[in-house]
C-alpha cells in the first residue's frame, strides 16, 4: 500500500485509478469471485450486477467513513455488515421495482452482495481510515474497476455463448453458439483467459523495465 502511516487527505488521480487498474478487485486482487463467475453469462447481467455492487460500495463507504470515529474497534465488523446489508436490501427492492426479469436473472446474487469481500475489505481497510471525499473517490474507482471486469467477462461470454451483445445478435444466422460459454464452466475459461492476458502484460512490463535498467547501468 502506498498509504502512509498517518492517513493523508490528499486526493490524487491514483486514489481513483487504484481500483480501476493497479488494484483491480477482480483481475488483480481476485475478490468477489462468486458473482464474477455466476452472473456474467450476459453483458446485461454483468452491467446490472456491477452497478448494484458499485452503489452498495459507494453508499457503505460513505457511511462507514462518516461514522468512523463513532464505531468502536471491537464491533466494527458487525457495524459494517449491518450498513452493507441495509444498502443491499435497498438495491434488492429497487431492482425489483425496475424490472422483475432482471431480478430473476440475477437471482440470489443480489442478496449475496452482502458477503462480497471486496465491499467489506474497502470498509475495513480504506473507508474506516480516510475522510469522506477520499473514501468516496476510492470506492468509485473500485466500483468502476469491478463493473469493468464484469463487463469484460460478460461481453466475451455472451458473444461466444449466444452470438449477441446486450441481447442484440451480431454474428448472423450461421453462427453456432458455444453454449459452454454461458454455462458455469465458461465463466472459469473466460476468467482464466483474462487473468492470463493481464499476467502476460504485467510480466512484459516488468521484463522491459528490467532490460531498461540494465541498459542504463552499463
Amino acid at each position, binding site marked *: 500500500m502506498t498509504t502512509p502511516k498517518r492517513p493523508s487527505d490528499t486526493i490524487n488521480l491514483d486514489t481513483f485509478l487504484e481500483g480501476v487498474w493497479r488494484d483491480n478487485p477482480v483481475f488483480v486482487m481476485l475478490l468477489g469471485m462468486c458473482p464474477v463467475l455466476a452472473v456474467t453469462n450476459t453483458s446485461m447481467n454483468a452491467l446490472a450486477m456491477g452497478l448494484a455492487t458499485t452503489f452498495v460500495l459507494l453508499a457503505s463507504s460513505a457511511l462507514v467513513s462518516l461514522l468512523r470515529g463513532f464505531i468502536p474497534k471491537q464491533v466494527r465488523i458487525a457495524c459494517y455488515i449491518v450498513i452493507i446489508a441495509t444498502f443491499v436490501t435497498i438495491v434488492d*427492492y429497487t431492482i425489483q*421495482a425496475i424490472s422483475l426479469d432482471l431480478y430473476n436473472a440475477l437471482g440470489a446474487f443480489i442478496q449475496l452482495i452482502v458477503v462480497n469481500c471486496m465491499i467489506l475489505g474497502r470498509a475495513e481497510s480504506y473507508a474506516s481510515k480516510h475522510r469522506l471525499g477520499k473514501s468516496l473517490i476510492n470506492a468509485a474507482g473500485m466500483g468502476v474497476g469491478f463493473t469493468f471486469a464484469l463487463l469484460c467477462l460478460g461481453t466475451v461470454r455472451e458473444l461466444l455463448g449466444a452470438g449477441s451483445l446486450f441481447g442484440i445478435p451480431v454474428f448472423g444466422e450461421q453462427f453456432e453458439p458455444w453454449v459452454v460459454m454461458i454455462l458455469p464452466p465458461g465463466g472459469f475459461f473466460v476468467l482464466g483467459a483474462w487473468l492470463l492476458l493481464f499476467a502476460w502484460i504485467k510480466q512484459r512490463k516488468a521484463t522491459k523495465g528490467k532490460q531498461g535498467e540494465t541498459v542504463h547501468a552499463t
Partner: protein
Amino acid sequence: MSENAPTDVEPPAAARGSSLAMIRALGVIAMLSGVLVVLVYQITQPMIAENKRLAIERAVFRVVPGAVDRRDFVVTETGLEPGQQATGIQIYAGYDGDGALKGIAAEAAARGYQDVIRILYGYNPGCECITGISILQSTETPGLGDKIGTDPAFLANFDALDARLNDTRSALRNAIVTVKHGTKTQRWQIDAISGATISSKAIGKMLDDSTRTLLPRLAPHISQLKVTEP
C-alpha cells in the same frame, strides 16, 4: 478462541465505558438501517406489486389467445372463490373485449433436469384442450433444455393439446404423456425435443398432474366463470 481469551480477562475501567460505546454504536446503526429499509420498502412496494401483476397478466394473455382482461379465482374443495385469498388452486380467467370467457390459465410445476420448472398453461373449456404454455421459472441448460420455452415445433404441441375429461367428469380421458421425438400420433401426446427429453417429459408430467387435479374439480363450476360480470 485463543485471541479472545486475553480480552476476556482484562478488566480495566475503560472497558465499561467502551461497552457502552459499543451498544450505542450498534443501536444507532441498527436504527438507521431500519429506518432506511422501511423507507425504501414503502416507496418501492407499489411498483413491485404493479410489476408482478403485469408479469402475470402478460403470461396469462400469452397462453389464453384472444384474452384482453383477466380475473382471479381460487378453485377450492367445494367451489369457486373470486380473488386470491382462499386456499386452493389459483386460476386466472381470461376474457375478450365483450366479456366472453376465452379460457383459463393455471400454474403447473415439476422437476426438470436442473431444478423445478414452473409454467403457466392455458386451458380452453370449449375444446377441452390446452392452448399454450409460458415458462415462469426454469434453469434448464441453455441451448438444450431451455428450448421448451422457445422451440416452435415443441410449442406447436400446445396449440390444442387434448385434455378431455371422461364421461363421469371425474378424471382425464387420456393421460397427457410425452413421447419420443417424432412418434406423436395422438392429440394428447407431446412430441419431445430431441436432446432435451428430461425437460420435455417434465412438461408432460406437470400438465398431466395439474389437469388431473384441477379439471375435475373445476368442471361443475365452469359456468360460474362464464356468467361473472366485470
